[in-house]
């Protein structure tokens, strides 16, 4: 791999802003994963409150999707919460790994103008968002009005950050 020895990174540049955005996203993703590790069990025990955050997107949207109040659904089928909790640990573990890789790629790769690092971060984010898209499509098909009450860090934030940071990174890369 050639070192671009003449490349000078500046924070106040398109690439610099892209790096900042992706870095922030990586840090927050790690934070969310650690939060899950700490509080998920406690949330699961308080099943009524669980319905506010929802299982898929949000309590409101999930209720509309299933055609009944999520609290009622959870009361009638407690297994839903159990399955969600177990898969939440899998997701959180993967978010943590994702966040670590993203931060490493940004810091050691993108900051040095490495194109492969940039495209890796973009591609990985796109792959993760496709997973979310497969969740959202059935909601849309069912006529559920999507709102901003979606998982903020692992879904809403990438929807905003990834396109912006990708364009800026593409502009700013040598």
């Amino acid at each position: 791999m050639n070192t671009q020895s003449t490349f000078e990174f500046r924070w106040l540049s398109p690439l610099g802003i892209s790096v900042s955005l992706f870095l922030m996203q990586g840090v927050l993703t790690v934070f969310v994963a650690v939060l899950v590790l700490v509080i998920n069990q406690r949330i699961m025990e308080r099943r009524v409150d669980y319905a506010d955050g929802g299982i898929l997107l949000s309590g409101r949207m999930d209720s509309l999707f299933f055609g009944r109040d999520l609290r009622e659904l959870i009361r009638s089928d407690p297994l839903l919460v159990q399955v969600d909790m177990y898969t939440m640990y899998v997701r959180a573990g993967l978010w943590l790994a994702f966040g670590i890789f993203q931060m490493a790629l940004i810091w050691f790769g993108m900051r040095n103008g490495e194109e492969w690092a940039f495209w890796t971060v973009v591609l990985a984010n796109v792959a993760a968002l496709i997973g979310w898209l497969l969740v959202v499509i059935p909601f849309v098909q069912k006529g559920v009005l999507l709102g901003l009450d979606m998982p903020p860090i692992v879904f809403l934030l990438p929807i905003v950050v990834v396109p912006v940071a990708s364009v800026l990174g593409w502009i700013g890369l040598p």
Partner: protein
Amino acid sequence: MTSQLMLEFRWLSPLGISVALFMIYGAFYVLIGALTPVMMNTQIGQQVTFSSSKKDSVLLGGPLTELLQTSPALAKIRRMLLNVIGGLLVAAGILVMTVTWFGLKQAQVWALVALALAGVVVLPFWWLVFRPFAEAGIAVGLDLPPFMLLPGILLAPATVFGWIGLR
């Protein structure tokens, strides 16, 4: 970013073996992730969510296929959450493979650290997934999901070889 050394990379070297193992690890993630949306709706896929069909049924209180039939909400939630996981696995696989190819293969220490760290930090989460089995007196053994089992087996040797190769 400078290479620590002007190394001539050789596949038949500790570093080369490390790269090969991590590449398999990453490719496996991509494969499992990409197949998840397809496989989970097959007869085989509908028998398992966490461990084996038999162990899952003990934990969940019944065979998964029956539970999915009696609870459409459970079937939908399971399908959608597995789609999210599939996307994350593909993403993780891409990350592992490119960090390995462009970083570790170029003898970048940060790449090995990132690969090892990311592989280790997920372990507490996997333990939490299977803790209920242990609490219910169910020995999971090697009935782990493939995306946990194979990377779990590869991580230690890949890291050790990488460390030896980078010294």
